[in-house]
């Protein structure tokens, strides 16, 4: 009898710990929405649609988040364009072409990359990449969207590689065998059979990588120059949503319009990453990868 009680109690405790994840997610949405909601009441959400982000001003503050969104978009698109060839190329190489010992060494080494703190990568970007971009392209400053995109592409690569590799490895061996038996070469088999069969997983991998890129804060804040302008030119300085929150939250007065506007930026960020992740997870579970 006593034993049965103990069993029940333990099950209840474990159930309670499992519920904390749900509580945290709900808490994140509630606490962001709380501040954003107050912004919607007082200056109104229309304020956010402006094209000028001037949160501190003697005349009139302006909380248009469009330059921040375009800044994040520009960096994300550039980073994705760089990540795709390297991420896919490397995952195909590691899973299909590398010798077994080579693979055993390459995989943990790229895993190390995932472990390097973003502030260290940002620091490396600041002392190596930024001066390099400045001299290579003859710019007045190397603090550009391009610098941010290169660092971010690099940071997304471990995610993309590990998931696309799973996808490539889950292609049935019989597909490859059939292709080779028909006389196709190794490369023809890889590009015409294996990669197309693994494509949904590779797409999901790229999307998860993009989710990481949009949400990345420190590296991007250190190298993009943080000018809140609307631009599509890689050699301009941009200010991303993440960098805006990180740089300005320390100086705002609690409860001010600026404070609440930053929570609105947080919501946009959360919704964007949430959407990307959900679609990617749907694809992965549909094709039973990972």
């Amino acid at each position, binding site marked *: 009898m006593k034993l049965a009680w103990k069993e029940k109690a333990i099950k209840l405790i*474990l159930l309670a710990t499992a519920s904390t994840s749900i509580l945290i*997610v709900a808490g994140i949405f509630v606490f962001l929405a709380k501040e954003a909601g107050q912004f919607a009441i007082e200056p109104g959400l229309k304020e956010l649609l402006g094209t000028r982000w001037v949160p501190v001003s003697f005349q009139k503050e302006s909380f248009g988040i469009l330059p921040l969104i375009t800044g994040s978009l520009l960096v994300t698109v550039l980073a994705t364009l760089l990540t795709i060839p390297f991420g896919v190329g490397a995952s195909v*190489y590691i899973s299909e072409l590398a010798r077994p010992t080579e693979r055993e060494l390459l995989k943990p080494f790229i895993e190390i990359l995932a472990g390097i703190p973003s*502030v260290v990568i940002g*620091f490396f970007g600041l002392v190596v990449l930024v001066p390099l971009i400045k001299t290579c392209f003859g710019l007045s400053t190397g603090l550009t969207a391009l610098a941010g995109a290169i660092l971010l592409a690099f940071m997304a690569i471990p995610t993309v590689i590990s998931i696309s590799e799973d996808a490539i490895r889950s292609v049935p061996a019989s597909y490859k065998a059939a292709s080779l038996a028909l006389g196709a070469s190794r490369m023809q088999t890889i590009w015409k059979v294996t990669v197309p069969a693994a494509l949904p997983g590779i797409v999901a991998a790229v999307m998860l990588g993009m989710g990481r890129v949009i949400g990345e804060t420190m590296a991007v804040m250190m190298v993009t120059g943080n000018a809140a302008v609307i631009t599509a030119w890689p050699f301009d300085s941009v200010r991303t949503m993440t960098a805006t929150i990180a740089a300005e*939250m320390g100086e705002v007065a609690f409860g001010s319009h600026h404070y609440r506007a930053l929570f609105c930026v*947080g919501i946009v960020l959360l919704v964007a990453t949430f959407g990307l*992740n959900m679609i990617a997870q749907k694809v992965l579970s549909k094709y039973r990868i990972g």
Partner: protein
Amino acid sequence: MQTATIERTTCWLMRVMTFSIVFVIASIILKIVWNGLPAISWEFLTAMPRQAGAEGGILPAIVGTLYLVLGTVAVALPLGTGTAIYLSEYAKPSRFTRTVRLAIVTLAGVPSIVFGLFGLGLFVIFLGFGASIISGCLTLACMILPIIIVSSEEALRAVPQSLREGSLALGATKWQTIYKNVLPYSIPGMLTGSILGIGRAAGETAPILLTVAAFYLPKLPKSVFDQVMALPYHLYVLATQHPDAAKVRPMQYATALVLLALVLAVNLAAILLRVRIRKKHKW
């Protein structure tokens, strides 16, 4: 003939791509070790910073990061392993289970700065902890929770079903089975995940920026309600906020090296542990 050439070129192209990634990783590590090592001394590791971090050491940042990591693990480990045990041993396919899994996937994708906003709103302001170690630890714990859950669950599922069935057939209760026959075999695997979580917590800057980190505070914390300095934030401050950034470059490299060494050592431990487990248990 031509096909063979194309074949070989493509293969080489992909090899070059892969190894260029390896090259960049190696050059980041080497650059920081090469420039950081000369600036590291006993004084640097054990002294208080002076003149806004331009001179002296980084002791408070090292201590701060250690406190944050320990506190984070103390919160996240019981919650994470508890959730993993529930999901792997107890959960039946139900709406609740699906919701828990959805929540974990969502948490894993939330940007770190958004965790910072959440920590600021809930722990710092709503619960009134202020910018303090406890706020920082709780925020970081929310962030690493999915890492610990996912790897712990994997470790639990790797234990063969027959071990559970044998124990249950002998009349042991469910919890006795889990405690005596499942956990002992899965603890190394669960540890791997926690170690990876530690590495993440030690290196992350954005969440602690809003919840705990002090810009410059040359003393050690006395209670969990004090602010602390932390290694990643200290590096950020030295690299971008210091008025004379070029002059403190050696200090920047040395701080980066200490942080990198800490995080890589932690991750390496996790990788080695995993290799050992794979060799030891071949079910």
